């Protein structure tokens, strides 16, 4: 890649087109889990798992916005951006997004204390959300703002979601949908502000690349979050192609072999096609009550095994 001269001019219209093209391609509205959600195909358990886990993402938003605030020397910028924190945390006049999300939790039949404790957040979800805070922490102000531009699609997505919930998930009380409604107006306003900032401050080709890169990473994070939610309910079993060797901890597959370490064999044995990933982790926890990190290790291991084709989870 040739280095751009410092004075290389960025055409704001061209940058805006690139950012939108990226969102067209990678925004999580196309994720199979979201597609099923909006088509009314999720079971109550799946919806609850999503509500419980997505709450962790909601809690990260004001934290990452605090990080962004701390990067700016500009009073005007901070005065405007701080509104995002109030939108989620609330103030004396009105409830914020976090409270509205807990009302959604109530409405789908979850215990809001359990949700708020973040105790049962899936490790893959935690990893994805923490990666967002880390991305913002390690980027400059411009790229951190660019990462937030997924908001430019959130208004439409949440409008669609509110309608889909009313139509397909009649068992959820309408008070539960207040979060989606509040965001259909907040998100477009925030997105317009973020886009204007990015297009004004991205001056060099390198700036433009950083913005596109940060937004791409953010799209990956949202996608990974849903992957993890989906995976939590999967009921894995050994793939038909996989052969577990009896004489040694080794799984043989077409043209490859996977070595098992630690309690790998025990975890695989628990994958009988009727236990969900969450239940496999609970099963292992019950067998090793004193061990550290059983759940996390179990999820990580099963994720790897799935990527390598050792286990599969029929829909």
């Amino acid at each position, binding site marked *: 890649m040739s280095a751009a001269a410092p004075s290389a001019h960025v055409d704001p219209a061209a940058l805006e087109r690139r950012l939108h093209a990226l969102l067209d*391609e*990678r925004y999580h509205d*196309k994720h*199979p889990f979201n597609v099923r959600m909006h088509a009314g195909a999720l079971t109550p358990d799946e919806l609850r798992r999503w509500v419980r886990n997505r709450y962790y993402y909601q809690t990260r938003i004001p934290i990452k916005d605090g990080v962004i605030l701390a990067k700016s020397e500009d009073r005007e910028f901070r005065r405007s951006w701080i509104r995002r924190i109030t939108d989620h945390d609330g103030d004396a006049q009105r409830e914020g997004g976090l409270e509205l999300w807990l009302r959604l939790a109530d409405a789908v039949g979850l215990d809001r204390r359990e949700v708020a404790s973040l105790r049962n957040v899936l490790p893959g979800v935690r990893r994805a959300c923490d990666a967002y805070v880390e991305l913002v922490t390690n980027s400059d102000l411009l790229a951190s703002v660019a990462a937030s531009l997924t908001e430019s699609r959130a208004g439409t997505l949440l409008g669609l979601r509110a309608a889909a919930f009313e139509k397909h998930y009649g068992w959820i009380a309408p008070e539960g949908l207040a979060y989606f409604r509040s965001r259909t107006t907040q998100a477009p306003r925030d997105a317009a502000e973020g886009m204007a900032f990015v297009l004004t401050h991205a001056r060099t080709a390198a700036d433009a690349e950083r913005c596109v890169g940060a937004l791409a990473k953010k799209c990956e994070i949202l*996608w990974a979050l849903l992957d993890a939610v989906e995976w939590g309910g999967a009921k894995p079993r050994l*793939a*038909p*192609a996989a*052969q577990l*060797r009896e004489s040694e901890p*080794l799984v*043989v*597959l*077409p*043209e*490859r*072999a996977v070595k098992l370490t630690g309690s790998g064999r025990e975890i695989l044995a628990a994958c009988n096609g009727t236990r969900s990933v969450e239940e496999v982790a609970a099963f292992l926890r019950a067998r090793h009550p004193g061990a550290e990190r059983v759940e996390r290790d179990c999820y990580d291991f099963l994720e790897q095994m799935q990527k390598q*084709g050792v286990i599969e989870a029929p829909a």
Partner: protein
Amino acid sequence: MSAPAARAPRPLNLVAELTYRCPLRCPYCSNPTNLRDFPDALSAEDWARVFREAAALGCVHVGLTGGEPSARRDLPQIVAAATSAGLYTHLVTAAMPLTAPGLAVLKERGLRSVQISVQDAEPKASDEIAGTESFARKCELARETKRLALPLTLNVVLHRRNLRRVREIIALARALGADRLELANAQYHGWALANRAALLPTHAQIEDAARAVAEEARLGAKPEILFVLPDYFRDRPKPCMGGWARGHIVVAPDGRALPCHNAAQLPLEFWNVRERSLASCWADAPGMNAFRGEGWMREPCRSCPERARDFGGCRCQAFALTGDAANTDPACALSPEHARIAASHAEPARGELRYRERTA
């Protein structure tokens, strides 16, 4: 059977090249161009012994390949022998002359999985590359594989003429119910090197294909898609065979035990399983030990921090392009001979193909 020398690592995989005969004539075939020097010298009984010895060495998997393994009429007997040796038995086939009833027989004998090659998503283009009408049969055998509940891998070699149809190829794999899709960018050995000017794609083609694969892979779990950027388009070499004589043993149709099937072209001494045990061919043949480990490496490999990852690249490519197999693979940007790879990109593209000779 003599015990393997301590320095020989445990091989996990045996590649059993049952014959170099094949009804297809693909111009990128990586089989040796001097096919007639490799007669089918091993009987089914010989193969049975090789399988038992491979299992004793630690192999857990055998790929039955060629050429076209189903060109051998004793294939069912060979599959049964591999299975009873305790190996995971995987068939790599062009789906000719193998038929649906023939595949059912192989499953009965213990076959665990099947890889079928298709040359393109477009029937006419596929047949043109194969040099024979075969596309419809391949699709039919792929469906039969799934009907028999055998795991199916679809393999498509990518090159200048089919790279633009990579999305159609993925759609074909989905339609056939493939569990795995290997998008194998042509490696320039054997016939492929002779046809390089007609097959080598442009950088733009490779980038477009990589993007299409990433998008398609995001949208669906199946098939698992393998797409590795070809070494001609990277500045580091491929970790060829996972290292020379490290995890794979190839037994060629003539009985020679090799670290990879192109290695027969190198001026090295390999031993034959008709004369010695597989363990001895693996551990003690001078050719097997020629490039094992790191002792043979010269600069820039010798002091390179990446040598444990790519093992210096491909010995056969180093030999074919520089005349010395101990040189750094010229696909590496650190190789003093890297310009040879760069020059190939500047060669004018050629239209006509030189087809592999017909052998079955």
